[in-house]
């Protein structure tokens, strides 16, 4: 085979694989959309569930998921960004730093059920928060923390060293340097990292299963110490725990569609923020 023909073959192969992946994901979304849309109605979105979710709406689960994701972001974003700033800008690049880094990367690969058990042990039982929004948000926050730290640190490292040196050489303090000449250029990258984390936080079932999610709770939470329903868990319940899973199939599709829309909404917000900051930088 000539080099030319080989080149063509490889090109078509990688293109074919890419199209295949896009088609599979596209079909999945299309299927959920088509089968979910008939279920979507104002009452489905705003009413409380009845008869274990077989009838009525999913309002408490929507609210619950939004609370949990927002809570996770509120805890994880500042923690993650601060850790990344410390690791990238302040910590001496020695063995301890490398060990911490390795630990964080390993943490990113820990199965979510392990985080669920960790949350159950630490927040629910030890701190006595009980199964609650607070415990669930914190658990999700810790689950997405590694993703946020790693990508935030990469974003910080991508800022040219010359800018730091120039700033320090002018007599700026470390924080002045980081705040004015590193952070603004790293923020878009940091948001990208958060996007990945947020999507994961909204969709995970295992961590909230043990720390917050209610099987069936047809009312809204009154405080952060209340339990809530959440979309992924509700979906799981409808699909596997319901006495008549076939009958509630439309409810499942409707719930899945709403969950996807919420994830897309969070991601879009992050992307818009990222583009806003990116536009301000001219290299």
């Amino acid at each position, binding site marked *: 085979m000539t080099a030319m023909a080989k080149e063509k073959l490889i090109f078509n192969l990688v293109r074919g694989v890419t199209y295949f992946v896009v088609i599979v994901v596209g079909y999945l979304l299309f299927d959920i959309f088509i089968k979910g849309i008939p279920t979507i109605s104002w009452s489905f979105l705003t009413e409380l569930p009845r008869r274990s979710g077989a009838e009525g709406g999913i309002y408490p689960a929507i609210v619950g998921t939004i609370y949990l994701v927002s809570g996770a972001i509120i805890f994880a974003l500042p923690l993650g960004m601060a850790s990344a700033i410390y690791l990238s800008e302040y910590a001496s690049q*020695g063995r301890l730093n490398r060990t911490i880094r390795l630990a964080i990367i390993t943490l990113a690969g820990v199965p979510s059920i392990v985080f669920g058990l960790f949350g159950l042990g630490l927040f629910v039982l030890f701190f006595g928060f009980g199964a609650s929004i607070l415990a669930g948000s914190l658990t999700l926050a810790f689950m997405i923390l590694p993703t946020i730290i790693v990508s935030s640190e990469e974003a910080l490292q991508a800022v040219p060293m010359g800018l730091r040196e*120039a*700033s320090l050489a002018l*007599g*700026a303090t470390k924080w*002045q340097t980081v705040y004015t000449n590193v952070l603004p250029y790293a923020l878009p990258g940091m948001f990208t990292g958060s996007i990945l984390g947020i999507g994961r936080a909204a969709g995970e079932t295992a961590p909230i299963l043990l720390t917050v999610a209610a099987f069936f709770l047809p009312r809204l939470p009154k405080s952060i110490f209340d339990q809530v329903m959440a979309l992924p868990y509700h979906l799981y319940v409808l699909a596997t725990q319901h006495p008549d899973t076939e009958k509630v199939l439309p409810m499942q599709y409707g719930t899945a569609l709403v969950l996807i829309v919420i994830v897309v909404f969070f991601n879009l917000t992050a992307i818009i923020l990222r583009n806003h900051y990116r536009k301000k930088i001219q290299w």
Partner: protein
Amino acid sequence: MVKVPKIKLLIENVNFFYNDKQALFDINMSIPDRQVTALIGPSGCGKSTFLRMFNRMNDIILGTRHTGKITMDGLDIYDSKTDVVKLRRDVGMVFQKSNPFPKSIYDNITYGPEIHGQKNKSYLEDIVEHSLKGAALWDEVEDRLHDNAMGLSGGQQQRLCIARALAVEPKVILMDEPASALDPKSTARIEELIGELRKKYTIIIVTHNMQQASRVSDHTAFFYEGALIEFGKTHQIFTNPEKQKTEDYITGRFG
């Protein structure tokens, strides 16, 4: 009567280490005030390391340490009481690779004064004009001060970096091969500028270009393998060096 130049920086028995590797060996030298001192020598001879000691830029590199003493106007710059931030205001630096902030030309200049607490707008405007004129850049950019600095040519960017250093009113300016990435015309402009700046500032310049050293400097120090081989008047170093090593280097026999 022969005018003896005042000593700005006094270097006594300085050794420098990157972890266990010694980079500078027992350097003793006195750098005269308001003159240009060139540091020359082959790559890896320690001249840049030495330059970065004067504004303590090596502090940010892990595992570096030194012995000996460097004083500026009689004050030990490595004393634990020395304010590094204040030191770096007094000792400005221009880097090999021009590194303007990706902001407007105006903001590049005002950054230094602003972080040091200067808020007065008209005063800042004066600084911008004054610094850009000092770096011979004003005529080229006066009508586009609010354009992004990254749009300037390489030579202009480097002069902007000089202007930015001037804006904090330093006493000493360190230049680490400031023209090595520039074309001959821009290099000539930078050299011309150094000739102007020497009237007001003490300048220490690291250069690979021996013609440049001979053109711009009053004194030249030749470094080899971390040691100061010879230090003297530029004219003397280039015409009648005392050490064989110096002669070999400046005549191009190695390096």
